[in-house]
């Protein structure tokens, strides 16, 4: 059919093309594909679909190298979420997604709608969401703007998930000046489904109606996808009207209605209208099914009058879904939505002709051949070169950095580290999240991984997000390996066997060789670790252009790990609990201090080699730990991460305020190591275990080839954490450590508490 320009639409000029973020090469490609000049609507469509956010044009070639298979992987990358089988005919769908750019502009709505989007990705698979997680990065809390972003994102995440009634069970928050202008907000959702109820977003069946369901389409968020594909600048401020407002109440109705729809048998496919809204959802569903579709924009329920096809196609209004129903079943679909007070409108159809066509009533306003709109997107493999500056930092001899005089008392150092917002308790955050709704959260936030039971079985899943961006900055490959290993370790500490990951690659502008180098190396490292640990990648999200004129964020490949706890008896907590238990260290201490929180917090230095990640050792450690847990020998397990062994031990005695214990520790076996490395170095593959049966733990460790040693005893009557190293003895009051750890973030946030409360009041519905 002939495509005709709409009266009143702008004429295509080089300036307009540039404004749409297309390069000349990309524009030429478009013209070649169409064999004519595109219409304004077509230009908008391509600008969205070929944006980084939708097309992965700088990352797809790299992502292809990741391991994605295992016998239990039911759905790998490419769908709305990945799915793994967990036995008993049940499966778990999970995915992580970023909302970095929207959150930088409007933290509350940006973060809230991020949660909304990831929930939809999971329930469109036919899975009922059972847990939410997040991974957050902000600049230093010393800045009032950062406090506002932090408070706004946390409130946005909380209000949305709380209202929908999905517990937010775990996450991480890191504060570092590297994220000053570019906060990272990644949200992860996990859902449960019966294997046979898995639903894919593949359009099929000529004549099947295409139905828009959920909220009406407004002018919000137009070009959000391309917005997420450029650096933040003054100009992005001007793009503020693109902000989308979330409505968790409608989402909850949409969730229930969608699950009912999927189970009803009336539909063949369903997909969230996320980034680039209607156009990307319809084009992607068509491409997956390799079918033609036609959409009539006049039939799309609009919130405002006079919306153009361009706007209706590109709007990112929230809480909407696109459904392909069976021929003749549209009325059933409508009836189900009406029960939930939602609307459904037939807006198009699957057609035999291989085209992607958009009409406005009679007029054809856009038409692309076949599915080339999706498949013809250019792919790039830019130059990669490591930054000299970063290499120099990595090669710096950090062991030569002289101790500060205060460090003569390691208790001072320990207290400083516990009070570092990155290490300190995140209770201020997760107290705003409902983590007990749905009565399945056996282990909530506060320790290592969260554990959510699977009703009707003796199983549970263990969940955690992790990444240390400073490591990845200093050495992207090693850092990404560590991100996977740390997440796996956390899951194992809770009693779960690591099964699969989803990931969120948060990087700077890939057109810069230093950034593309980081991306390439990090993906390689992640792949190596996933292969070694047997945790395939089932999906993820790429967020590039996280930079501003002062520089890029640390490369931050966030890992969202799902583990399976085979029996509820295996569920393990992090804190010491019982007087007289032996404390065993699994793994070995080293002299490494490069890239540590210690160097950053105490010396303001970001340098050195990050700790070495020995994947074989990590696997053995996880096996040993899970064996010991299965034998019933482990009372608690906590991994050593930020702040090293001393911080891990301190957390074990006081992470639950009011349930504090003491401990006597003897690390004399390592007295040859520099004290600061022994206490605060971040050597990998280490876990602190408390046990009533040290001999059993040691034997199991030995069997698995894991170094292990009894390093102390839990003391319920003592109020101190005592550490002996050879002739020196360190004694810290547990109460003092607890105050440093638990009060750090609340005290900082008090500084602008009332202003934050006011600034966020407008959003408060909860």
């Amino acid at each position: 059919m002939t495509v005709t320009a709409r009266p009143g639409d702008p004429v295509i000029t080089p300036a307009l093309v540039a404004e749409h973020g297309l390069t000349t090469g990309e524009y030429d490609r478009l013209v070649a594909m169409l064999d004519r000049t595109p219409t304004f609507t077509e230009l908008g469509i391509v600008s969205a679909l070929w944006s980084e956010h939708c097309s992965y044009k700088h990352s797809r070639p790299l992502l292809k190298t990741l391991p994605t298979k295992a016998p239990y992987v039911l759905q790998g990358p490419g769908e709305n979420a990945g799915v793994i089988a967990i036995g008993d005919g049940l499966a778990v769908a999970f995915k992580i997604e970023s909302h970095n750019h929207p959150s930088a502009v409007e933290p509350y709505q940006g973060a809230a709608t991020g949660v909304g989007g990831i929930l939809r990705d999971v329930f469109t698979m036919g899975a009922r969401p059972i847990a939410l997680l997040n991974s957050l990065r902000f600049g230093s809390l010393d800045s009032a703007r950062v406090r506002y972003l932090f408070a706004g994102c946390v409130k946005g995440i909380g209000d949305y998930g709380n209202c929908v009634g999905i517990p937010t069970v775990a996450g991480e928050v890191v504060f570092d000046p590297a994220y000053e202008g570019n906060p990272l907000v990644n949200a992860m959702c996990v859902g449960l489904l019966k294997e046979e109820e898995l639903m894919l977003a593949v359009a099929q069946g000529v004549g099947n109606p295409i139905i828009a369901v959920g909220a009406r389409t407004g002018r919000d968020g137009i070009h959000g996808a391309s917005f997420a594909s450029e650096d933040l600048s003054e100009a992005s401020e001007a793009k503020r009207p693109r902000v989308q407002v979330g409505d968790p109440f409608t989402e909850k109705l949409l969730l229930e209605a969608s699950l009912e729809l999927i189970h009803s048998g009336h539909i063949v496919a369903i997909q969230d209208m996320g980034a680039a809204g209607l156009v990307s959802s319809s084009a992607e569903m068509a491409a997956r099914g390799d079918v033609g579709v036609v959409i009539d924009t006049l039939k799309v329920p609009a919130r405002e009058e006079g919306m153009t096809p361009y706007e209706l196609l590109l709007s990112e209004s929230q809480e909407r879904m696109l459904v392909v129903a069976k021929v003749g079943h549209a009325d059933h679909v409508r009836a189900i939505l009406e029960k939930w007070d939602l609307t459904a409108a037939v807006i198009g159809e699957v057609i035999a002709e291989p085209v992607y066509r958009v009409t406005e009533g009679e007029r054809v306003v856009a038409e692309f051949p076949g599915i080339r709109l999706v498949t013809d997107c250019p792919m790039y493999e830019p130059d990669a070169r490591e930054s000299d500056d970063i290499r120099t930092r990595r090669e710096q001899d950090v062991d030569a950095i002289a101790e500060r005089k205060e460090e003569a008392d390691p208790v001072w150092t320990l207290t400083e580290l516990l009070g570092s917002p990155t290490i300190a308790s995140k209770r201020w955050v997760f107290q705003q999240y409902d983590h007990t709704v749905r009565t399945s959260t056996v282990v909530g936030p506060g320790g290592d991984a969260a554990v959510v039971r699977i009703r009707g079985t003796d199983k549970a899943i263990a969940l955690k997000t992790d990444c240390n961006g400073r490591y990845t900055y200093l050495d992207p490959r090693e850092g990404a390996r560590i991100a996977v290993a740390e997440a796996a370790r956390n899951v194992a500490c809770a009693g779960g066997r690591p099964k699969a990951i989803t990931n969120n690659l948060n990087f700077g502008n890939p057109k810069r060789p230093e950034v593309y180098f980081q991306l390439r190396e990090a993906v390689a490292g992640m792949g190596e670790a996933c292969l070694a640990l047997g945790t395939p990648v089932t999906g993820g999200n790429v967020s590039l252009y996280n930079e501003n004129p002062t520089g890029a964020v640390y490369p931050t490949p966030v890992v969202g790990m799902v583990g399976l706890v085979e029996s509820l008896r295996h569920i393990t907590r992090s804190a010491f609990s019982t007087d007289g238990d032996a404390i065993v260290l699994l793994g070995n201490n080293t002299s490494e201090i490069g890239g540590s929180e210690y160097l950053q917090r105490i010396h303001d230095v970001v340098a050195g080699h990050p700790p070495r990640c020995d994947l074989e050792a990590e696997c053995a450690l996880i096996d040993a730990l899970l064996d010991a847990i299965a034998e019933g020998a482990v009372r608690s397990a906590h991994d050593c991460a930020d702040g090293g062994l001393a911080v891990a031990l301190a957390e074990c005695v006081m992470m639950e305020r009011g349930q504090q214990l003491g401990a006597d520790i003897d690390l004399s076996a390592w007295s040859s190591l520099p004290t600061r490395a022994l206490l605060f170095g971040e050597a990998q593959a280490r876990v602190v275990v408390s046990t009533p049966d040290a001999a059993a733990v040691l034997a199991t460790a030995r069997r698995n080839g894991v170094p292990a040693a009894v390093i102390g005893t839990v003391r319920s009557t003592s109020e101190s954490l005592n550490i002996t190293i050879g002739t020196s003895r360190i004694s810290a009051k547990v109460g003092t450590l607890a105050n440093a750890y638990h009060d750090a973030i609340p005290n900082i946030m008090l500084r602008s508490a009332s202003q934050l409360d006011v600034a966020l009041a407008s959003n408060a519905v909860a």
Partner: protein
Amino acid sequence: MKFGIITFPGSNCDYDAYRAVVEAIGQEAVYLWHKDHDLQGSEVIVLPGGFSYGDYLRAGAIARFSPIMREVVAHAGRGAPVVAICNGFQIACEAGLLPGALLRNESLKFVCAPIGLRVENTSTLFTNGYHENQVITLPIAHGDGRYSADDETLDRLEGEGQVAFRYVPNRNRPGDSCNPNGSMRDIAGIVNEGGNVLGMMPHPERAVDPLLGAPDGLPLFESILHRVHA
């Protein structure tokens, strides 16, 4: 005994209440849709937690007009038991089943935490399974839990033994502020004059399984069973 669990658009603790009734005390439960006009013979009605109608305008304000609420009010009027938890408490106040109102937490923040409570009156339909002055721990999860009423109402509630639960310091966390929302006179839960309608902000239905922590909500459900069967 049959429990009817009301589901409003936006309810999200209906499932937990259902599980608690069926699994923890082995009774029958049915979900009742907000547009229904029939309690299906339920003896005990549960108004569950959540965000009915998104809590837009005021928590509970819109839900109170749901068709089913007419039946619930009539049920309560007949002296039959109604348990209103969290958002249910807010709805019950809006509907006039209980006096007072629940306002935004004084901290202006949502709070999810285990909280210490003292059972103030063990003679009610809902609390007879606890012992005098028993201190229990239940989860809370709300943003609008600040119970407020005029002094006269508060005096009457206290005088008539209608205060069922009060926030107290948690044994395990000395020094922690005990009242999580700034409610007047530390009130966490009340019963109506007839003693057959309970409203409370904490979630007893989330505390019935030892796997998830102290099952301190269980005696509440058992109390209803004892009394109604007695």
